[in-house]
């Protein structure tokens, strides 16, 4: 009887592992927040591994992995949020130090001041907002 329970647990974990493998590679790269979605899918894989460990009688390993798996997922998501998540993290969109003489990169505050100063001219049509930068050809 115990053999059947172990087998059922192992087959359930195999099905969950296959589903998570398919989900991990079938998500499109241009999907929004795709890294968080993949971390979420790996959570399914973690639980499948814990089920397999329980089925073969490794209770201590299953308990240890049950505790440490969320820490791993959170660490990866936190690292992605801090350094690479340009979709959601506004701090990553600004350039901190800008050379004043650089003709191509302008600080965000300067552009905002320019936009607010000249915005009266362009409000004839409220559907569009136009930002203009004067380019001196002598530079």
């Amino acid at each position, binding site marked *: 009887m115990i053999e059947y329970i*172990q087998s059922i647990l192992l087959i359930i974990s*195999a099905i969950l592992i296959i589903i998570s493998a398919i989900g991990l590679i079938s998500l499109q*790269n241009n999907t929004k927040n795709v890294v968080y979605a993949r971390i979420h899918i790996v959570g399914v894989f973690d639980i499948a591994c814990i089920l397999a460990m329980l089925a*073969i009688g490794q209770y201590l390993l299953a308990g*240890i992995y049950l505790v440490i798996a969320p820490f791993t997922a959170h660490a990866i998501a936190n690292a992605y949020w801090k350094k690479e998540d340009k979709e959601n993290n506004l701090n990553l969109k600004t350039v901190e130090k800008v050379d004043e003489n650089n003709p191509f990169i302008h600080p965000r505050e300067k552009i905002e001041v320019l936009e607010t100063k000249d915005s009266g001219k362009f409000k004839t049509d409220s559907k569009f907002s136009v930002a203009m930068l004067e380019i001196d050809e002598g530079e």
Partner: protein
Amino acid sequence: MDILFVSKYIVVIALIIMMLAALRASAYKSSSMGLLGSSVVVVAFAVALLLVGDLYNLEFYRDISLALILFGFVGTVAFAVVLGGDDK
């Protein structure tokens, strides 16, 4: 044939498929995806070792998989802390 024996082999095959999928996912452009894929590969390999050791009555495989799970966790968290940088 024993059903437990067959189901252990099925899980090992599923883990190999998961390892291949994680290797593919770790080749995507962000380094967080590489970190995620490598941690999945380590855990899948550790569980596959556990199952193989259980199939062939090899006791020391359990110790290797325990070391893999623990040090894989430590390495993943350490790399994630280095990647994330300091809190301001």
